[in-house]
């Protein structure tokens, strides 16, 4: 497996210098995508910059009312943070659908996002939750919404030398709840045919006052579907509202046919899955209010 150098910087600044100094240097988090791609020859970086020795990149921290998740934090560790799992169960569950225990002990949400697979499981959940990421690079730091990172299969909006330092989640509000579901032919170890993340807020009467709906594996990137959220807002998630949301997510799709599912199946299934996801989010929102 070719690679000319392995670096393990201890600070963000050193990592920026290494990543911008070599023509094709790549950040390494869990390696569960990158190492597979290096072996298959899809990716042949000149240098690997391992982010796991930078203290600021590991662990889950409180950030005001919300959370800052270091980009090198493995998915398993998210489950072990009780406050995070209570506030954002959809995000934590989505990250813990990835692969096997062995894979989740290494894989990170930052890698899931920056690998830019349309079927990345953590991404729709993060988008629905309104997550942002803090990016470091040669021009300094910037914070952008998660949905702006992937721009196509395998491609991100990160500039050369930039990398994700942390993923930020707001605090979950009273009456809020999130969920993520994916459809796969097996129970474990498979790639989403369709995925849906929903985050919503209910008032005391059960009326939806805010919502975000995101879908995965049905377009070149994970999508935030504003029309689907609009269909829920102001409703009590009755059948008419859920049907309208389903129509909106189906209309937003631009899927491919592949061995996992046909275009037609994905477009129909995304409505079903978004509906199921919204009902779980509602139950959680109800429990939180």
């Amino acid at each position, binding site marked *: 497996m070719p690679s000319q150098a392995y670096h393990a910087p201890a600070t963000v600044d050193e990592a920026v210098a290494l990543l911008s100094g070599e023509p094709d240097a790549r950040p390494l988090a869990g390696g*569960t995508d990158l*190492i*597979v791609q290096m072996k298959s020859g899809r990716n042949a970086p000149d240098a690997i910059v391992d982010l*796991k020795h930078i203290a600021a990149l590991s662990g889950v921290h409180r950030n005001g009312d919300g959370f800052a998740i270091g980009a090198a934090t*493995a998915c398993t560790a998210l489950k072990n943070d009780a406050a995070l799992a209570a506030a954002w169960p959809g995000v934590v569950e989505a990250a813990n659908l990835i692969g096997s*225990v062995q*894979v989740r002990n290494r894989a990170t949400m930052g890698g899931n996002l920056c690998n830019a697979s349309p079927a990345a499981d953590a991404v729709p959940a993060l988008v629905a939750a309104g997550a942002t990421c803090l990016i470091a690079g040669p021009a300094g730091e910037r914070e952008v919404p998660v949905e702006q990172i992937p721009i196509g299969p395998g491609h991100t909006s990160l500039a050369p030398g930039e990398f994700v330092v942390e993923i930020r989640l707001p605090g979950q509000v009273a009456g809020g709840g999130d969920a993520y579901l994916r459809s796969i032919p097996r129970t474990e170890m498979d790639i989403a045919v369709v995925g849906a993340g929903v985050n919503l807020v209910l008032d005391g009467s059960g009326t939806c006052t805010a919502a975000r709906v995101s879908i995965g594996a049905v377009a070149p990137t994970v999508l935030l579907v504003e029309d689907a959220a609009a269909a829920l807002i102001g409703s009590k998630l009755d059948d008419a509202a859920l049907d309208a949301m389903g129509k909106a997510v189906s209309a937003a799709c631009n899927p491919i046919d592949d061995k996992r599912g046909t275009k037609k199946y994905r477009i129909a299934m995304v409505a079903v899955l978004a509906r199921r996801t919204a009902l779980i989010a509602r139950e959680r929102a109800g429990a939180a209010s």
Partner: protein
Amino acid sequence: MSKIHVTTTINGDESEFLCTPGETLLDALRNRLGLTGSKEGCGSGDCGACTVVMDGQMVCSCLVLAAEAQGTTIDTVEGVAEGSELHPVQQKFLERGALQCGFCTPGFIVASKALLDHNPDPSETEIRYWLAGNLCRCTGYDKIVRAVQDAAAELRQERTPA
């Protein structure tokens, strides 16, 4: 290409080796350290035959760079038995006939022991999900699950003071 010098603790013993930047931990274990118990079934994280425990967490050694092992503690299948005395997980795999060709077995042994180290009384469902990253093409899994249940029961008895 310069070689990287790595120092780690493997099965309780301090070890050192030289590796290339793109080399996997699995290749270093097998080819540089002669620890050929860990197997390469797929090389892509799918089969679990290469499972080792790194700093207390089980991982696919085919998806870890050898250079990443610097300063870590690694436990491989070679460290599971105490001398010639088999660990209960190994003993129960034998008794239950939980192996045929044996290619997957080192990974199953390491993963099953890792499960019982942190959950002494797993349900059948927990066992099956925990082992979802280990593929076996021979046994049909049922005998493996029974062996893990038997080993769990034996370990719980050993732990209970008489």
